[in-house]
């Protein structure tokens, strides 16, 4: 009767079967989003953080190392604490704090671990360790933070911190993740890539409760963490400590360079801070305090401060004029003190005597000859042409732009050229000539240099005509193998035959204008300077001293700036000579006059507003 209904029924059954097959095809074959979701489900990437590279000084002394710290992790679901008060006492937190942290952890996940307390020090952990068993659901996760063997080199080493959202955005390699620690300043930042090493990733298969169930595909895609490279810095840690000690209570900086290599032996800036403050749990609090300090301890004066060079610049003037051939080394020029005020009397001066006596009017004439070579009948045009030549020659000594030392933030200084003065003295105001700008001849006026550039000048003269880019790192050490970094020589002029006259002048200058720098048995070539303090009549000018020693076989070139210390032959020369002696002799030989005591007593910072001492 209803025979045909069997076909309807069978058709429906077959139809449903086909619908399933089509839907399953769409789900399993056509749509691959489920593959991704499946992997996200089960694969738990475990990041193995590599050991950050260490830093050593030139004598293999450890400067920066890693110290283990602990994060207290919590798995909220497993938490069982018999006595909350006991827990809070042990970890030194309040009960409200405890509840707030628990809630935060629970909000993240009840089964996945998250950090309950961060950066528990090794010492604190030793006290806690034995009690941890009492608190179910908590465990300690070891990490490392940076530690500094001595409270030195704060601005040179820099500090590490959590990566900022901005930097994260800029990271095109996609290496970093939110929460990663990176070098923020100094060497930590500059050599971040070498120091950080390579993160290891292991992929673990986890079940629905986040419990590991073995490695993913037998670890085929796992990578081992590669520890960061160790930095071999050029710093002489003992000398650095001595320099920072001498700078205590002053505002200023010391840069010492090994002339033959460009290696920076000392780079100190005062006031500074203890780098250990910017690591560990108190980072935030300490950073705020240091940042708001009115003496700006985060300001690295050695590379960031810019001053007019003062009389030390006379050496550059002489070298350029000699190179240009407008004077010769033994040419005695009769000068009359009519252009500028002068400590040196009127009379006949050659290069050596000019530097020895720091004769302002002699260098007035030296620079005039460089700038006004009679290339044009117009005194203006002639100056403009000459200034262009002069500015380029000055730049050849590394002035006017950053030298490119291996930490960030180096100031360029300023070398005014023709264009600069055209802007400064627009045509409608009448043009400018040598008579407008002659204060440059003695290193005053618009010129600006950094202490590093001055130290580099000392090294250039010590090398008789070339410098090697000053640097703080000479190579990387990996598994005991050292990979040195190559640096090339920069030549400053046409020849080195002019240098003996300058060096002779500098040797004599120390005996004459910087008697405090004289060290028995170690001939020093040096030049004092006074950088005009922009604020007139307020406080003393800045004291500058540039030197290298031994004069005939230079091992160290140095620049010392002491702010508001007045004349360069005083504090700065004393500091420089002490560092030179310490470096070359290894100790300070006792003399009838205690230079060290003299320097340590000079506390120029005292009395300045807002300074803690």
């Amino acid at each position: 009767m209803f025979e045909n209904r069997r076909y309807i029924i069978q058709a429906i059954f077959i139809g449903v079967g086909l619908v399933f097959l089509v839907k399953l095809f769409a789900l399993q074959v056509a749509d691959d989003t489920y593959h991704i979701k499946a992997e996200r489900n089960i694969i738990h990437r475990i990041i193995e953080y590599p050991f950050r590279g260490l830093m050593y000084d030139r004598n293999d002394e450890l400067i920066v190392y890693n110290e283990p710290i602990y994060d207290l992790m919590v798995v909220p679901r497993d938490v069982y604490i018999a006595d909350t008060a006991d827990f809070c006492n042990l970890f030194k937190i309040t009960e409200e704090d405890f509840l707030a942290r628990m809630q935060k952890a629970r909000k993240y996940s009840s089964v996945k671990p998250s950090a309950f307390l961060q950066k528990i020090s090794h010492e604190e952990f030793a006290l806690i360790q034995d009690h941890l068993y009492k608190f179910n659901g908590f465990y300690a996760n070891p990490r490392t933070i940076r530690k500094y063997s001595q409270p030195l080199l704060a601005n040179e080493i820099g500090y590490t911190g959590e990566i900022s959202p901005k930097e994260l955005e800029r990271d095109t390699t996609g290496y970093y993740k939110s929460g990663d620690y990176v070098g923020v300043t100094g060497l930590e930042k500059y050599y971040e890539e070498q120091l950080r090493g390579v993160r290891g990733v292991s992929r673990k298969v986890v079940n629905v409760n986040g419990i590991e169930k073995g490695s993913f595909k037998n670890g085929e895609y796992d990578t081992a963490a590669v520890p960061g490279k160790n930095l071999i810095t050029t710093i002489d840690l003992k000398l650095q400590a001595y320099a920072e000690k001498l700078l205590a209570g002053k505002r200023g900086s010391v840069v010492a360079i090994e002339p033959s290599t460009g290696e920076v032996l000392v780079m100190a800036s005062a006031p500074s801070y203890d780098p250990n403050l910017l690591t560990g749990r108190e980072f935030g609090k300490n950073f705020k305090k240091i940042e708001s300090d009115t003496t700006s301890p985060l300001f690295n004066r050695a590379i960031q401060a810019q001053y007019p060079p003062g009389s030390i610049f006379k050496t550059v003037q002489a070298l350029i004029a000699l190179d240009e051939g407008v004077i010769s080394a033994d040419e005695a020029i009769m000068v009359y003190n009519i252009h500028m005020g002068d400590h040196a009397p009127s009379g006949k001066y050659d290069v050596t005597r000019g530097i020895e006596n720091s004769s302002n009017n002699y260098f007035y004439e030296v620079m005039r000859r460089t700038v006004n070579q009679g290339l044009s009948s117009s005194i203006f045009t002639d100056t403009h042409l000459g200034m262009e030549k002069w500015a380029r020659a000055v730049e050849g000594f590394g002035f006017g732009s950053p030298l490119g030392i291996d930490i960030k933030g180096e100031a360029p200084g300023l070398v005014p050229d023709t264009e600069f003065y055209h802007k400064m003295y627009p045509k409608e105001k009448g043009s400018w000539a040598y008579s407008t700008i002659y204060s440059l001849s003695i290193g005053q006026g618009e010129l600006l240099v950094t202490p590093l550039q001055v130290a580099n000048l000392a090294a250039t003269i010590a090398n008789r005509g070339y410098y090697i880019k000053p640097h703080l790192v000479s190579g990387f050490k990996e598994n005991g193998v050292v990979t040195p970094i190559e640096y090339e020589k920069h030549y400053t002029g046409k020849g080195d035959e002019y240098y003996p006259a300058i060096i002779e002048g500098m040797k004599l200058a120390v005996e004459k204008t910087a008697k405090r720098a004289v060290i028995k048995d170690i001939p020093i070539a040096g030049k004092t300077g006074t950088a005009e303090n922009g604020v007139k009549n307020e406080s003393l000018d800045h004291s500058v001293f540039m030197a290298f020693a031994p004069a005939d076989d230079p091992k160290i070139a140095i620049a010392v700036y002491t702010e508001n210390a007045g004349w360069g032959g005083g504090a700065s020369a004393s500091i420089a000579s002490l560092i030179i002696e310490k470096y070359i002799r290894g100790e300070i030989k006792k003399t009838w006059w205690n230079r060290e005591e003299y320097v340590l007593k000079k506390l120029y910072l005292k009395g300045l507003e807002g300074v803690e001492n």
Partner: protein
Amino acid sequence: MRKEGSLFGSIDWLIVIIYFTLVVLGWFNIFASVYDPVANQSILDMNLNSGRQLVFIGVALVPILVILLLDFRIYESFAPLFYGIMILLLAGVLVFGREVNGAKAWFEIGAFRFQPAEFTKMATAMLLARYVSSTGVKLTDFSSQLKVFLILGLPIGLIMLQPDFGSVIIFASLIIPMYREGFPSIYLILGLTIGVLFVLTLLVPQNYLFIGIGAVTLIAAIMQWKKPKRLIPVALIAIGITCFVLATDFILNEVIYEYQKKRVEAIFRPELVDPQAEGWNLEQSKIAIGSGGFAGKGFLEGTQTKFGYVPEQSTDFIFSTLAEEHGWIGSLVLVTLFIALILRVIFIAERQKSKFARVYGYSVASILFFHFSINIAMTIGLFPVVGIPLPFFSYGGSSLWSFTIMLFILLKIDMHRSQVLMRF
């Protein structure tokens, strides 16, 4: 020897082969669902579901043997008795039963658990078959239809009280053998309409639904304008539909449990469901199945099903294990096996000379089909999650034995199909 030879006699070997294929595949997949790659266990491990399932499979041979030995006529003769016993057990389970997952559906005697609803399906099918095959019953008559609904309604009502909606839906499958025997199509159409309206109530805001109903009624009324007598049924249908919509809304919001509502919403309005909570089962099942790809991840290589992401892994969601490890090819094999089994059962039903046997055969086909299709549909998000196992495949003795008994009774009856004539 002769006796043993006649024991299997003219049994339908194709069904027996498909049956054992499904049972063995099921067993392997149960092992794959519970296998822990770290622990390196054996499929025979008695601590695992796979080990226990092997015992269930072995024990299933006992009822098969008993059925083959028993007289094939007892099922028709004792159908009312079986039905009566099952109704009593269903009533009893409401009083003495143990509550599992919010439903009082199980008797528990020691370690042994027994779900009367599993066997009631079979008993109901037998009584229906006996009733339909008795002389003078015409399913085109309303009085006969009423009696069919009565036989179906009694167990459905009792199971509703447990409540176990999954089993209720399976009972609805028995409409199909009735349809085959001449039940009016209007019941199927009505059922379909109710289904469509139910989905529409979920998907479309009530206001729009009412506007739609109004518009359709108006058009129907205009079309029937010249025959005013027909306006009354049109109006009645419109009122009926409106009531149904209101009732559905009421049921969804007031009667059924929140979790059940969420399971329904997970299918039709997934945006309302949190995949981390109520939507978890379905989402994880889809991830497992979807990540299987064309050829699958390989036996014991599945990751989603192995690590507990899919709940009820070896029972109701066993299909996701198969689909993950054997991909679309595995799905194809499984769907083909089931459709082949069901079509073969229909073929057997159609070759019966006795009406009882035919109706019973169609009932077996329909129950298997409903179990299979609803189970697969719920794992791939075409049907709300209800606790319905995949026949022969899912872990569990109760389910395996009841399906085995149901199928082998049909095979036993089929073996004696030529003897039937003698009775009439």
